[in-house]
């Protein structure tokens, strides 16, 4: 075959067409990149070209329910260096290292870094104003002091576990600071400018400024007046009993607002680095899980009453001091037993065999149904991090012994906040609330409420009638039973003691208990639920009634007064024994002369102040009942 010119001509034309076709494909591809991918590429390219100078927002403050600041910001200077402007890095490094207490080499590294602006982290950040002043005085070229802000906790170690703390970049690390970090931290602003690949500003492209949005202020349900009382009482108890740990919670039973929450050991949020992590990591009131002991009997009682398995006044029970359940012998805490009692007395005496009886009358299904209904075995859902769930027997593994021990609070593990929420439901008419701590979000500029948390009822557990009987029974526990230490005259405190043996590696420890008391007041219309638990108090009988009840009594008395709750005229009077100090009504001393005072016969001490002959002021006021031998302060003046 001979290749002719015809073939060459044909093939040349074919080459031309193929060439045109390939050029067309390339042109289509160009269009695809510019139109279909254009937007995506432009976005990415803008990211590449733009440089952001961040503007930090102000972190939202945390306030108590009355506006008392609990976490705020203070200005804190930071050192910035511009490496290119530094004339003598070695000398500058030495001077800075001196003031900042850091190795010279480390400063030198910062000073010679190839960057436009360098922060000396962390030594040169958020330094004291004195140090900043010293650095300014040196007048070093390329070294600048920039204003920065630092978290400040005005109360120190106070509500620490709840508040938590924020880190050096004002980021929430623990507690509410972490839980609500997003709301508190606001949004970073920036100046965005376009630059070339060498960092220089690109001509003809406008800068874009996005202003930072400050974080919202957080108003808590916490009342600092109540919190201060909790902290004070725990401080006193700490010196008295040197316990391993302590917990106190105060809640409004009618809506689930936490008014106070404290624990020991505690820490100062400003100094968290010097505290073992297990101290600041564990918010004991919601984290710790242990056998509740007798405080749990309230739940058994509530179930039995609601199911009409018991009549507190008419039904009687004989306690021999122990009870046999499926071959096991369970003892009452009182050796020899309480003898014959009404079930009201069973409650007052916290008699274990009596509650075993109530448990049997209910049966395991009903008993556990109520335990779960009261919120045990699940998180309460409080807005704090690290909440525990507690441990319940799975129903199929509950035999007669487990049923019996559960009825008086052993063999279950619960958290303090679960108990508070459950008891609140038992006394408030049966409504189980979700406890909460963040009440309102406020606009930092206008102070207007942006968002408000409303009380959340999870479910109704018991009827008002049952609740009323529980209040009555528990008031009698305080007035006449094991909880006398919590009695506050006029405030009708009701409550229940608890003493739980601590277990370690499946064995109960000897002489090592968590003693607790859960109380509420006033019994006619509860305003406050207070729970206190003391872990392994020393130098005392480890009974809830002895250690924890008086603490709750003190907290109740001062808190209710602070909250403006009026003392009641009607109350269940306290049954006194020879052990109890007698109460005396304070007489009216106003108007009496010194001479008159000497003739008065009463068993009270006087604390006299002021010049003059006549009593013009006295505290406490006439009619208030105090212990025998208590002190009355009087102020003398001249007769008008």
């Amino acid at each position, binding site marked *: *075959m*001979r*290749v002719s*010119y015809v*073939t*060459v*001509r044909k*093939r*040349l*034309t074919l*080459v*031309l067409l193929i*060439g*045109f076709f*390939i*050029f067309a*494909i*390339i*042109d289509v*591809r*160009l*269009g695809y*990149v*510019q*139109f279909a*991918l*254009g937007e*995506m*590429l*432009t976005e*990415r*390219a803008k990211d*590449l*070209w733009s440089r952001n100078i961040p503007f930090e927002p102000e972190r939202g403050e945390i306030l108590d329910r009355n506006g008392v600041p609990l976490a705020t910001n203070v200005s804190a200077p930071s050192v910035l260096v511009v490496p290119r402007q530094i004339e003598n890095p070695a000398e500058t490094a030495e001077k800075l290292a001196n003031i900042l207490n850091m190795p010279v080499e480390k400063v030198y590294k910062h000073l010679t870094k190839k960057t436009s602006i360098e922060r000396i982290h962390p030594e040169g950040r958020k330094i004291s104003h004195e140090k900043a002043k010293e650095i300014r005085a040196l007048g070093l070229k390329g070294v600048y002091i920039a204003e920065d802000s630092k978290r400040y906790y005005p109360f120190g170690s106070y509500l620490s576990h709840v508040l938590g703390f924020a880190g050096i970049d004002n980021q929430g690390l623990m507690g509410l600071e972490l839980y609500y970090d997003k709301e508190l931290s606001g949004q970073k602003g920036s100046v965005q400018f*376009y630059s*070339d*690949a*060498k960092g220089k500003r*690109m001509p*003809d*492209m406008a800068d874009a400024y996005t202003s930072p949005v400050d974080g919202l202020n957080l108003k808590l349900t916490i009342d600092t007046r109540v919190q201060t009382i909790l902290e004070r009482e725990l401080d006193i108890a700490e010196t008295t009993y040197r316990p391993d740990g302590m917990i106190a919670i105060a809640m409004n039973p009618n809506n689930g607002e936490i008014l106070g929450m404290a624990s020991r050991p505690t820490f100062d949020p400003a100094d968290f680095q010097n505290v073992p992590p297990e101290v600041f990591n564990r918010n004991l009131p919601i984290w710790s899980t242990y056998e509740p002991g007798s405080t749990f009997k309230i739940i058994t009682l509530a179930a039995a009453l609601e199911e009409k398995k018991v009549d507190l006044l008419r039904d009687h029970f004989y306690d021999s001091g122990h009870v046999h359940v499926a071959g096991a012998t369970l003892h009452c805490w009182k050796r020899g037993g309480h003898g014959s009692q009404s079930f009201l007395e069973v409650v007052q005496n916290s008699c274990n065999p009596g509650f075993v009886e109530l448990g049997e009358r209910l049966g395991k299904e009903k008993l556990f149904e109520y335990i779960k209904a009261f919120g045990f075995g699940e998180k309460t859902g409080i807005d704090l991090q690290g909440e525990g769930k507690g441990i319940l027997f799975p129903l199929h593994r509950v035999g007669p012994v487990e049923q019996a021990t559960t009825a008086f609070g052993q063999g279950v593990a619960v958290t303090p906040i679960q108990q508070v929420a459950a008891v609140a439901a038992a006394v408030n008419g049966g409504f189980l609330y979700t406890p909460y701590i963040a009440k309102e979000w406020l606009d930092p500029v206008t102070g207007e409420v942006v968002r408000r948390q409303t009380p959340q009822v999870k479910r109704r557990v018991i009827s008002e009638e049952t609740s009323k009987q529980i209040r009555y029974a528990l008031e009698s526990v305080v007035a006449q039973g094991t909880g006398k230490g919590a009695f506050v005259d006029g405030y009708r405190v009701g409550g229940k003691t608890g003493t739980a043996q601590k277990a370690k590696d499946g064995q109960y420890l000897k002489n090592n208990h968590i003693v607790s008391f859960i109380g509420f007041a006033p019994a006619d219309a509860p305003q406050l639920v207070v729970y206190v638990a003391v872990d392994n108090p020393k130098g005392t009988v480890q009974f809830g009634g002895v250690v924890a009840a008086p603490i709750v009594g003190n907290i109740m008395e001062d808190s209710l007064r602070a909250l403006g709750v009026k003392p009641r005229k009607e109350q269940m009077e306290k049954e006194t024994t020879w052990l109890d100090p007698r109460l005396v009504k304070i007489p009216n001393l106003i108007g009496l002369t010194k001479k008159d005072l000497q003739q008065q016969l009463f068993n009270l001490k006087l604390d006299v102040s002021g010049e003059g002959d006549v009593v013009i002021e006295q505290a406490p006021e006439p009619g208030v009942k105090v212990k025998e031998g208590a002190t009355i302060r009087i102020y003398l003046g001249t007769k008008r």
Partner: protein
Amino acid sequence: MHGKRSAPDFLLIIITFSLLAIGLVMVYSASAVWADYKFHDSFFFAKRQLLFAAVGIIAMFFFMNIDYWTWRTWAKVLLIICFILLVLVLIPGVGVVRNGSRSWIGIGAFSIQPSEFMKMAMISFLAKFLSENQKKIPSFKKGLLPSLTLVFVAFAMIMLQPDLGTGTVMVGTCIVMIFVAGARISHFVGLAFVGIAGFVGLVLSAPYRIKRITSFLNPWEDPLGSGFQMIQSLYAIGPGGLFGLGLGQSRQKFFYLPEPQTDFIFAILAEELGFIGGSLVLLLFSLLLWRGVRIALGAPDLYGSFLAVGIIAMIAIQVMINIGVVTGLMPVTGITLPFLSYGGSSLTLMLMAIGVLLNISRYARY
């Protein structure tokens, strides 16, 4: 045998000058920022390119007046010289390494790329060989195999530098020439398989080529390494849109796209002049291709025809590969865009080639 000389293809000159003008403007626009930064003279590259263009134009008119049969006479000698140069360039000390390839023989500022000249010498020689042995072309043993062997020896030598871009253009050009000369289609199909296998083997033998391949498929896999140029190129083209950001308004030339005046100049052009500008350039190259093939069709003898198609195929293939790379259709190979990219060697050679093409057109009868 020599017919009467008439006027050269005027339209081809116009197209060439248009591309040259666009190239000069774009070299200035793309390089100004970089030139100012490096040499404190924003016209640094533009001035040199203008000089190269002047030299190139003189060369073009010079070669336009040298009868193209001269190249047939000297074809063998030129080819041997080029082979010698290809060996010399591999010797360290003689050959200069730029961008990882030993491709340059340096005599001060006037350094040349032997592989570029090899392309031309090969086109000239192959045109001679094919026109003289046209009857044997359909035979695999006598026609196809000798010509291909020669081409692949040259290709192998170029790949020793290595310079995949130039090598590919040369092989592509030669295949087009052999195809036009009348090789059997069935031979091509068979060779295509061999070629693909060979190319894959070549790519697999050097890891950096694998990276180039993968980075072209997804440049964002390694945005700071192998995908860097591709991404920077797309960041230039993408925002260009239909009309572009306007002449001189490129952002990617601000040090983002490295050496924007050379291989990736089309990206800056598409950024500043948009789809319209890019399409116009493609249209000009299509017209160039048309004029080139037209000259091949009108050439008075087979030698002229093959020489013309070789030259125009070389230009067109180089354009296709360059713009294919810039728009992300192909892996990065490192090849200039004829008439537009900055670079003396490339530009003067291209204009010389056009000069030869113009000379053929003077004898063409359509």
